[in-house]
């Protein structure tokens, strides 16, 4: 009996010793060799951080709220993205938009307005019907608002906020973001309609090569023939169709966060969206220039839907021939004479 008690005492003693050792080990790990407490002993190790940086991954903690993405403590890739949208994008956007403005002002000062060399004949021909103009203006109006509100996201904080103060900037930025989100839908509808209604006239052909070789009538005073859309207009068309599709697709990835892609995918979408958008703005500045003050008689085409015969002859001679053959030589004379939009 005494032997049995001795064995039981030994087993219990051994268990207590093991338990005490297990409890003491973590505590000893928190201490330095000299016995002082090391408060960072259980924190993230440098090697772990370096490994995460190399893999492009992230370090996660633990949270109790439903959205487990908030457990992400460090995502080193986010620093590259932050540098892009806080520094690199501003340089790209500034150079693209200001650069284009400088080029256009210089071009206007050197070349001046592209004049209607043979003057107004008084005979008009329909260039764009009401539906085409409505689609153009819906897309254009939305684009201008999207461009202003989009540029506000990139340049508002450094340029506008110091001028109008935090309160006004916060209100403006909030409403600008609503406008940016909601007007993207009519813009996308407009881009799709533009693709459908003008695709037939915007397929590149040999006439475009000759048009480009001869400077398109923009450089110099030559008037290379063109069908309904010349090579310059075709470039704008494809910028709108391809650029518009890319900004819309990347924008909707951002508007529906985490629906389709993860954080890396959204950072990529934002990068694509921003770069295409600032280049798009630069291209549209050129389009607006040549469609208004850059070329005499051009605005009338989209403003009232008709152009003067001499305008059509100088800039779209092949198209005018087609229209004359289709409608007859006297058809166009029935159009009312318009006042030049200058």
């Amino acid at each position, binding site marked *: 009996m005494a032997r049995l008690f001795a064995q039981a005492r030994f087993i219990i003693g051994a268990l207590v010793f093991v338990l005490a050792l297990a409890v003491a080990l973590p505590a000893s790990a928190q201490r330095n060799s000299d016995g002082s407490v090391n408060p960072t002993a259980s924190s993230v190790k440098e090697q772990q951080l370096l490994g995460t940086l190399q893999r492009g991954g992230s370090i996660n903690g633990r949270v109790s709220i439903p959205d487990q993405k908030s457990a992400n403590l460090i995502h080193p890739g986010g620093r590259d993205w932050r540098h892009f949208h806080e520094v690199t994008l501003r340089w790209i956007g500034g150079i693209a938009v200001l650069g284009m403005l400088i080029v256009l002002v210089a071009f206007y000062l050197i070349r001046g307005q592209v004049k209607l060399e043979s003057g107004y004949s008084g005979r008009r021909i329909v260039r764009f019907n009401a539906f085409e103009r409505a689609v153009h203006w*819906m897309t254009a109006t939305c684009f201008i608002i999207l461009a202003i509100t989009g540029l506000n996201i990139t340049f508002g904080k450094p340029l506008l906020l110091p001028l109008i103060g935090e309160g006004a900037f916060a209100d403006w930025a909030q409403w600008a973001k609503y406008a940016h989100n909601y007007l993207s839908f009519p813009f996308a509808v407009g881009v799709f309609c533009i693709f459908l209604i003008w695709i037939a006239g915007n397929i590149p052909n040999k006439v475009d090569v000759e048009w480009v070789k001869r400077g398109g009538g923009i450089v110099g005073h030559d008037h290379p023939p063109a069908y309904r859309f010349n090579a310059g207009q075709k470039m704008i068309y494809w910028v709108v169709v391809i650029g518009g599709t890319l900004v819309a697709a990347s924008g909707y990835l951002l508007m529906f966060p985490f629906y389709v892609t993860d954080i890396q995918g959204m950072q990529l979408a934002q990068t694509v969206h921003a770069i295409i958008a600032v280049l798009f703005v630069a291209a549209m500045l050129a389009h607006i220039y040549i469609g208004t003050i850059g070329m005499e008689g051009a605005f009338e085409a989209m403003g009232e839907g008709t152009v003067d015969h001499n305008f059509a002859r100088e800039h779209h001679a092949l198209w005018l021939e087609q229209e004359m053959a289709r409608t007859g030589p006297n058809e166009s004379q029935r159009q009312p004479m318009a006042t030049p939009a200058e």
Partner: protein
Amino acid sequence: MKSFLLACMAAVIIATAAGFALSTVQKPADAAYSTTGVRL
């Protein structure tokens, strides 16, 4: 001018419809990424 005004009207109508559609499928960030409980 008529085409321009029609275009603006169409843009507003489509944008408003999109706004209503978005509000049915999305929640504001303060609702989507939090709980109703208070944490101290």
